[in-house]
């Protein structure tokens, strides 16, 4: 099997195809601390891309409450159980990926979900960990915890959906790294559904072919961020292009957040797919849980995130979330503002680092009313 370099693991790994990185790679950063599980992203994705026949069970974007929420049911605990206990510490991953632990006759570890597994996409919503004992009350730091995990296809650098397809119907676009299923070539074998550990490839029982998130490629081609990003109520997302760490540019907000500030981490990097959605981990969740989910660098990421207000460049990059529909290729912080530029280097957005504070008198003489602060 060819060897490819996975920077998230800090080492080479086995992959069924020779590693060819795209010219540039679309990526997304999500700040889990800001997500309110309003599901606006889920609904806009659904109405944009999957309102057709046979797509009823498909949520290319979903938001699940962790630790008890899953879509499809139990997706991560099932693959984690197959994967077994793996050593996660250190800069170089010493465990096995899902390709390296492939059973005989398979390209990777995997399983096919049952139809019922898709039936309750909101299962576990807002369930928190631990039983409230009699007399317990909420106290800060509170003893119960949960958080929201929005998920889309990771447009992985080493997609296992692509690796598993026996018809080679899945391809990774060289121009932007978006992973697509050729709808003409697919024969509905569901090897991708079986082998995507994130369960973001789906089978359409009406068209008898498999489908997956298309990374809103018509928008990306037009220089725009994805639907789930631009609709996000919590402004938790940013879509852009990410570099490999050796080519990271400090003036690319994606690179700054992931490679320089190192506050956003891939989901289950130990699977070995080099996923391209990066999560700012929730600050209140017990470290062992986050460690398993986002890898060994979670503690440092949370520490740096908590100090973001003191790092103007980081603050500037974070404040560009939800500020424009256009993809920001370059940014700079200047004069108390963060300024974003598109691919033609034209300014597309300008956001103050700190909101101006205006103190108004309590009595509004014009309207003859008292002003009340409600927020």
């Amino acid at each position, binding site marked *: 099997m060819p060897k490819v370099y996975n920077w998230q693991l800090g080492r080479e790994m086995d992959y069924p195809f*020779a590693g060819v990185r795209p010219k540039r790679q679309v990526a997304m950063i999500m700040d889990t601390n800001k997500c309110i599980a309003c599901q606006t992203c889920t609904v806009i994705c659904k109405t944009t891309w999957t309102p*057709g026949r046979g797509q009823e069970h498909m949520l290319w974007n979903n938001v699940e409450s962790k630790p008890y929420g899953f879509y499809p049911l139990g997706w991560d605990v099932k693959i984690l159980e197959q994967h077994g206990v793996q050593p996660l510490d250190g800069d170089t991953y010493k465990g096995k990926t899902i390709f390296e632990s492939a059973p005989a*006759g398979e390209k990777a570890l995997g399983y096919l979900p*049952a*139809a019922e597994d898709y039936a309750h996409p909101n299962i576990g919503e807002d369930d928190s960990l631990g039983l409230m004992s009699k007399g317990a009350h909420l106290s800060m730091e509170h003893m119960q915890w949960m958080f929201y995990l929005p998920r889309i296809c990771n447009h992985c650098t080493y997609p296992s959906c692509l690796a598993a397809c026996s018809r*080679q119907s899945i391809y990774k676009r060289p121009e932007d790294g978006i992973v697509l299923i050729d*709808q003409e070539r697919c024969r509905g074998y*569901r090897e991708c559904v079986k082998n995507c550990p994130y369960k973001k490839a789906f089978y359409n029982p*009406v068209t008898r072919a498999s489908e997956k998130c298309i990374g809103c490629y018509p928008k990306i081609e037009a220089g725009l961020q994805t639907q789930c990003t631009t609709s996000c109520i919590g402004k938790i997302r940013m879509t852009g292009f990410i570099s490999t760490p050796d080519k990271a540019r400090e003036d690319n907000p994606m690179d700054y957040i992931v490679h320089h500030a190192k506050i956003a981490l891939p989901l289950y990097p130990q699977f070995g797919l080099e996923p391209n959605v990066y999560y700012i981990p929730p600050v209140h969740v017990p470290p062992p849980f986050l460690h398993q989910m986002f890898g060994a660098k979670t503690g440092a990421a949370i520490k740096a995130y908590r100090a973001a207000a003191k790092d103007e460049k980081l603050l500037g990059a974070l404040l560009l979330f939800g500020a424009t529909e256009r993809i920001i290729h370059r940014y700079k912080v200047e004069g108390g503002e963060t300024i974003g530029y598109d691919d033609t280097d034209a300014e597309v957005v300008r956001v103050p680092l700190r909101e101006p504070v205006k103190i108004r008198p309590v009595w509004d003489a014009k309207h003859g009313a008292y002003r009340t602060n409600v927020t």
Partner: protein
Amino acid sequence: MYRTIPMLALLMLLGACGPGTTNKPANSEPTPAPQPAAALITAKRVAEAGPALAPDSGAFDSAPAVTVNLLPQIVVVPMNQKTSVGEISARAVHDGKWLTIRLDWADATLNDAPGIDKFEDMVALQLPRKPGSTPNIMMGDANNPVVVLQWRAGRQAAIDRGERPESRHAYPNMNKDIDIADLVGSEKGSPYRGAMHVNNPVSLPDLDRSPVLAQVAAGYSTLSGYTGRIAEGRGVHNGARWLVTIHIPLGGDNEMVPGLAPGAKSLLAFAVWDGEFSERGSRKSWSPNWTPIELAN
């Protein structure tokens, strides 16, 4: 009943390589080891062959049956190391206009329903496209293309239903509030039908299709759809076995399998999928050698 591959065959096949390692369709052509020559299938001339001949027709009783041993496909990944079908019986008749091949094999479960986690029973015949050629058994090679005629139980069930495929065929009790095509009309809603919109042959974009999916290939992993209607077929499940006919038109109007005519010889290879065990694609039982067929004069 599950069947494991005999150890000898396993050793013979293990040397073959998998598909290429780039993410373009690979050109490498895995070659299983040669097998002993198989018995000859003789297609008897009868008064009437073709689609009118039901799979359980007595007309097949007088045609000699040839039993072909099937092995699990273990040359390329993914594979099921155990498969459920160990042999298939083939009989053939022709009437000068149609060559009808009747296949039957043991399968206790009928799998023809659509569903997210359901797979259908299928059987395929492979024939060389060039008269007299002996292509690589694994989907031919660049100089020796093949045609693969695959009868699909679920495809037949969908055609028999007589309606365009719908979600309720898979999940009759599913509640769906709105469908985009109902909102914007079927033409504007068509792109939301994905594979069907781009005429993927497995999607049954129209019902004027045969339950036999015709595909052509010139090497491993080059299988692609053929839109012409070149073969008919019908399957009947009798509770214990599938009886399936595949009807291939003879003569000039059959551009996919030219040269098939009374007195001609060709080759057949077989593959069977049992939906009950999630067999699909390369997870199948197959005959790793060609079986000769002769059409009686």
